């Protein structure tokens, strides 16, 4: 082997060590800052102080107001015009009942896990191999992708398993997050006679069911007659999603290096 290539090799090795020593940490720091910012948006409740969490009000189209506290919807004041009748349906949560948005909690936990991974490898930690950095980045990216997927892909629900509504017997309600939007779907139901001659086909799982979807609950058969869907944007969630995208990029580019 010629000496030139040996010199070249030494230089490359030196550069790689620099990358491990300095560059990786600066990327990690940057990533950590972005994630901290993202995590802050989730307003982590400190134990015992849940009630002190900031309340946020969101206006759902023209139909009403929702109050979000942390990851739970605590209050609702919604008026929906029912189809084919001038009747207006009014929704409210009972004081002791909250609607927990599991998607937000899951996303928050995934971000925190990613942050925890990064916190364990702060400036004082010396990376020894590139594989080690790759593995860490894989783990962080996995958590971030998961967090984002939780927000971007609302869990699909079969109709019977969707949470039953407050009191009105023929109405079902579902709240979920889609991207940065908080969505509310209200299904107006129509009870099918027990021995109906109509073909009964139970609907599968879907985020949004169309009128005509049928299902069985407690030995009663129902058909969805009308669907109302209203949504509003949660600004901080769209921020977070942007943060996720921002943070995935240096993570992946540092991996390829």
């Amino acid at each position: 082997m010629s000496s030139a290539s040996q010199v070249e090799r030494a230089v490359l090795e030196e550069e790689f060590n620099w990358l491990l020593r300095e560059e990786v940490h600066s990327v990690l720091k940057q990533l950590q800052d972005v994630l901290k910012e993202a995590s802050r948006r989730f307003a982590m409740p400190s134990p015992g102080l849940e009630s002190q969490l900031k309340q946020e009000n969101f206006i759902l189209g023209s139909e009403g107001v929702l109050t979000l506290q942390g990851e739970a919807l605590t209050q609702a004041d919604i008026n929906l015009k029912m189809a084919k009748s001038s009747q207006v349906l009014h929704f409210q949560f009972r004081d002791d009942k909250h609607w927990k948005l599991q998607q937000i909690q899951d996303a928050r936990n995934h971000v925190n896990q990613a942050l925890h991974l990064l916190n364990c490898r702060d400036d004082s930690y010396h990376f020894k191999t590139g594989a080690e950095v790759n593995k860490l980045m894989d783990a962080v990216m996995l958590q971030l992708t998961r967090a984002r997927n939780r927000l971007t892909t609302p869990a699909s629900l079969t109709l019977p398993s969707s949470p039953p509504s407050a009191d009105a017997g023929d109405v079902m309600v579902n709240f979920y997050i889609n991207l940065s939007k908080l969505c509310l779907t209200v299904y107006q139901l129509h009870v099918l006679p027990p021995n109906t001659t109509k073909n009964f086909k139970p609907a599968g799982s879907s985020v949004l069911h169309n009128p005509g979807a049928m299902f069985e609950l407690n030995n009663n058969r129902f058909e969805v007659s009308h669907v109302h869907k209203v949504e509003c944007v949660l600004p901080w969630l769209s921020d977070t999603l942007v943060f996720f995208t921002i943070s995935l990029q240096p993570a992946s580019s540092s991996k390829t290096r």
Partner: protein
Amino acid sequence: MSGNNLVLPIVLWGRTAPTHCISSLLVLDDCSAVITGCHDGQICLWDMTPELQVPPRAMLFGHTSSITCLAKANACTDKQYIVSASENGEMCLWDVNDGRCIEFSKLACAHTDIQFYQFTIGTQREGRLLCNGHYPEVLVLDASSLEVLYSLVSKISPDWISAMSIIRSHRTQEDTVVAVSVTGILKVWIITAEVSRMQDLDPVFEEESKPIQCQNCQSISFCHFTQNSLLVVCSKYWRVFDAGDYSLLCSVPSEADQGWTGGDFISADKVIVWTEDGCSYIYKLPPSCLSASEHFRSDVGKTREGAVPPLIYKIADQPDKKLLICPPVTRFFFSRREPFHKLLIQGDSEGRLSMWNVPDSTPAPQHSTPELPVSCTLSLQESFDGLMPVSSGIIDQLSAQPGKEQPIKVTASVYIPAQGRLVCGREDGSIILVPATQTAIVQLLQGEHMLRRGWPPHRTLRGHRNKVTCVLYPYQVSPRYDQRALVSGGVDFSVIVWDIFTGEMKHIFCVHGGEITQLLVPPENCSTRVQHCVCSVASDHSVGLLSLKERKCIMLASRHLFPIQVIKWRPADDYLVVGCSDGSVYVWQMDTGTRSHTRPYLNLLCVLYYVLQGNLPKYSHNALVVQAMKTNVSDPDMHVLFFDVEAVIIQLLTEEAQRPNPTLVSPRACTRIFKQVKETMKETIKEHLLDDDEEEEEEQRRREEKSKSLSLLEYNLTMDTAKLFMSCLHAWGLNQQLDLICLERLGMLRPHCPISFGLISRGGHMSLMLPTFKESLLRKLSVATGRKLTLSDIVGKGTYGLSRAVTTQHLLSVISLANTLMGMTNATFVGEHMKKAPTRPPRPGGTPESPRRGSSAPQSSPPPQAHIKQGWSQLAAMHCVMLPDLLGLDKYRPPLLEMLARRWQDRCLEVREAAQALLLAELRRIGVSGRKDTIDLWAPYLPQYVDTVSSRESRPMKIMKFNQSQTLDLTQKKRTNRVASSLRSSLPS
């Protein structure tokens, strides 16, 4: 998938152990095995000896993502079941003894921890799995069906559960589940008898909810010695709580920048806590934490932060250890039965297990904390290195490097069943074409081929400048491609098209700016232009459509921001859909190469990923399929030979039927045979279909012969496959006379050393024996027989002492094949008919690789028909009835009755007959008492009215026959209804 087919895998691992970056770890209660799960989704079974040696035995395949947790799944000792869960929500129940998958399921949520617990329901104890993970509940699953029974839910601030422990209170006879949520709230659920009986999905709410300020909780463990305290380990401190009212007894911060990752009690007054860098510390608890002490609870309400109790031992990681790429997994294991081990076990990213025997004694106070010496440490690679003879790879004999010990690694391969050829791309950039059965025979069996150099005949294609990353034979996927074209991609950014018959390099595509990672074939209904393309994916995040016909790249889609994970097609719209690792999706117009849409966050992606990651082999109806597998992208290929017994039998019978009667050969037939010997079977068929092409083909062939003699096709593929397979299965060394007959009359060959078989079970899950299995088998058999055995003692017959499921599969195969061969004319593996071509003199100017045969091989005339048939019948008889007596019961695992019963009506007549003969032989062997036990075992799964029949002792055989016609499985109680109805119909009226 494999379905009902009788498919037997044989593995050639090669010298490099598979990557096994351990992510979870489990020790069986009786200290008989350690089980590790890895980040790539495989599970490794390590046998544990009383001397604390851990030879790895088998590797289980089936999960498609990282294993997150492992737990035992039954309480009885005769069967050992474990459950594994992976990051994408898959769960799998395995039998540890034979690596069979008993049950599997997939949930939307990922578990991070599973604990097995037996709840008392009335007088019965029912096995349950308690799972926690990325969801706010604790799910309670049935341990045998993996069905969710009910869930434990939090009313107050529900959140993910980080750790959980189950306590049985002797006072109240209640089972208590204690868990800590992500936000640091302690939750307590009480499982009463009513709760455990519940079958519907009613939630169970917590009994108590108490904030204990434990952020980042890593583990929670209950002191089994005093039943009075709880240890909660968080990353920055560990704390001891009173198990009665959960008041804080002591709190110890972590040192410097280390984070704790877990801990446990090792005795009433000592705890062991470990860090993420693999060090462990044993502390003596202060008196305020000890219920036996008068100072117990003296500090409640005024615990001082920062007071560090005395450190007794320190267990540091070994300084000579290789660098780790991720934190190791540590567990403390305390066996409650003989031999009462207290073990600290650690598994790391190098696939290494380390064990420390934790002493009960406390050393005299010293100046510095003493370190515990490691009791045993072994990595997968070390165990491979220690093998004699070394574990062979598929083409090791062709890959020897002068001056180096390691052969050139195979990095990509494809098997072409129609030609029986294996194409292996290697790390030095060369590609080897070799007949698969021939090369497997060299690796596995002893014979005259050992004397030949450069055997088997092969061809080397040189063109890539560095590692070959993928090879593709498009004709195999779709007949619209030229059957000569072989495509390969390498790390040198190039894609090369070869002529597989002449070995010529046809074209080099250099369109990508990164290493080629995948080569794919577009689906049938694409536009004609695209149909003649292959699709290449490169690590510079680009996708190309390379036309083999036009020899140019018709589309290059680049500018993807993230690595490409998956390619999907929508031919109707002329769309190519690219899925990237960040979840974004790009849609390209194929013919114009314009990007039509970019749709990040598409729901369907989750589905796509799942499709992509299924790396389990697909089976086709070929007698032999060679599948290259790797556990990690950076690993060299290992090869699994899948033998489909049914297909072997069909091929043998087809050839028998087609065999021309020598007296009736017409001149026309002569020429046909002459052609046949030169071309593959596939080609011959094509020739018959397209008679017009004959001249062209002839010319082509002449050209071919001029360029290079390949002589790859001169062997009878079917007979070769049967030879390889029978030689591997025969229980050598039990009957000298029969062995001699096998060798000389039947032409079988004795294996070099015990062969690593595998077992395919439900849903394509597979267990493959590691080459080191023989060490543990040897040790086990030596103990059983009381004398020292050597490796050659267990060649062949050893596999029948492995596990009952393996024995069943092997006996079925060997008997059905022997019966088939018995019915054939000239069914021996020696003699002229094994070669398809007349021996030609060696061509002048041939490459050194070209074979030199004929001179050394003595051409013995085949023995007479009757002798051959007699040989096969002796072979079948020995495996069917004589094996238990010859081997001795201590070295024999009898076949499983229910597996045989399932084949009672197998669609393949030979397999069916073998199953029936074996089942009857086994029923005879186990005697009256054995049959009675079997009936007792199965009785609970049969409907009530059958019991009256089964109690008639005079007719036990009849009952067994009823079972045989049905697929009965202990875990599938649901099926009993079907059995009942068929029983009703088959009952004597």
